[in-house]
């Protein structure tokens, strides 16, 4: 824990220096969801409700997507990939540092700095778009479950990205893999549209895939879209399973990867 805080502190000052960089990345994270809200707003001009959503509930959904994309999902893979190519990855092997702990601390510190921009920006957008807070009524227990589910999705996302980053050891250039993941995830995580708009067959399969638990599942918790206790329990169990799964897979890939790693340029 002490180490974690030290890494966090270090990266935090780094993130403060690169404020503008963080701001531009945040705009890029918000962009797609904002475009979708605008389009939906036009779609709701002729209809009151569309498959159970009203304009304000769907706006609220996309505000949730924006929050997850800018504060919860991390992207350690790009830099990790660069470090593997340049040989800087060796640093993690010779120093008494746990790679995942270090990367998680630095990713979270960048997110922490982001909160500073995110809150004023989201408050402005909240005024512009009709996502009234009246639709956001939840009990304390839902809030606790939401935060729990959100932290699990943070971990799933983090370990997937770490695994993707580590594949650079074998592929040297793994950008195509990162992009492929983004494309599939953007459709199946609920990033682009709420998943209940997909055909029911697809939804049924998607319940067991990890993507849904990155975005849609935590959001459906806070938006009161989960009605039965069974559904809730099943969802949280599957989510928890994926955290464990990707953690073990990460350990395995790291272990194999270190044996294959060639430390170029070192």
């Amino acid at each position: 824990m002490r180490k974690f805080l030290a890494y966090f502190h270090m990266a935090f000052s780094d993130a403060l220096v690169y404020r503008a960089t963080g701001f531009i990345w945040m705009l890029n994270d918000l962009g797609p969801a904002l475009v979708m809200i605008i389009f939906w707003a036009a779609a709701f001009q002729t209809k009151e409700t569309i498959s159970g959503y009203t304009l304000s509930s769907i706006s609220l959904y996309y505000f949730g997507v924006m929050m997850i994309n800018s504060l919860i999902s991390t992207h350690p893979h790009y830099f990790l990939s660069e470090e593997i190519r340049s040989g800087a990855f060796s640093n993690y092997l010779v120093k008494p540092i746990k790679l995942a702990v270090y990367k998680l601390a630095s990713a979270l510190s960048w997110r922490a700095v982001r909160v500073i921009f995110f809150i004023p920006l989201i408050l402005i957008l909240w005024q512009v778009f009709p996502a009234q807070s009246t639709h956001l009524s939840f009990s304390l227990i839902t809030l606790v479950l939401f935060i729990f589910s959100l932290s699990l999705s943070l971990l799933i996302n983090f370990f997937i990205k770490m695994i993707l980053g580590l594949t650079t050891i074998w592929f040297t250039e793994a950008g195509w893999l990162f992009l492929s993941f983004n494309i599939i995830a953007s459709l199946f995580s609920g990033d682009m549209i709420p998943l209940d708009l997909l055909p029911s067959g697809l939804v049924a399969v998607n319940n067991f895939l990890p993507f849904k638990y990155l975005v849609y599942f935590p959001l459906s918790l806070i938006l009161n879209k989960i009605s039965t206790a069974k559904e809730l329990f099943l969802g949280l169990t599957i989510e928890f399973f994926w955290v464990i799964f990707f953690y073990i897979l990460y350990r395995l890939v790291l272990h194999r990867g270190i044996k294959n790693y060639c430390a170029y340029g070192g």
Partner: protein
Amino acid sequence: MKRYFKLYLAFFKNCLIREMEFRSHFILQNFISLAWAGVVMITFFFIYQQVSVVNGWTLEMMLLLTAIYFLVDRIFDSFFEINFTNFITIVNTGQLDLVLTKPVSSQFFVSLRQFSFAMIFSNLTMIGVIIYLVSRYFSPISWLQIFTFIILILVSVVITYSLWFITLLPIFWWGRVDNMQHLFRPFHQLCRIPVDVLGKLRLFLTFIFPLAFVATIPTKSLINSSFSWLVFYGIGAAVFLLWLSHRLWRFSLKYYTSASS
């Protein structure tokens, strides 16, 4: 002019040879850039399962808009995207010195030095999708419409290039911002939806900050058979923005401090 053309041909050949060395990468990149367009189209397909028309835009129109958006986007990517990424690096490392001493326009050199073949399939497929959608849902169309459409695609590429290039220039003052090339992207994504759904912003985005010309107006030129005088405004706007990007480039260069050595 002829000199620039010959120079560009040399750049082009040079990049083709490079690209062919990494063939598997080339094929993968092509496939992935195509998949993106596919995902956006699927999204609209699912949305239109719930509604039949949005502000006068039907599913077929939206698919056409998406195909045109991605066509322009991929043309932009092929010609400019890598160069814009490199541009940030060469300003920060001081390698821009080398470019400035060359006997060609420096803006030409930094914008067009590399050509990316990674989007070729994607471009051809988008053209295919556009032809299919038009012949299936929006035919017959006249030769005049096809001609206007091609002009508007050129206008769209020039406007995208000029606006995007202008957003790179603050790098001369804020060298630390190493992702400046992504500043324009969220604004560009706004072109994925028709400007008609933007309400009050529509006129602003047509005449002042002409993002409407990126995809909406080219799409409309294929949908509506009546000729729109907006084409001339678009040509004017493209020429003006290109000129403006050049003036601002000249101005910004005065603040170049040549980072290293």
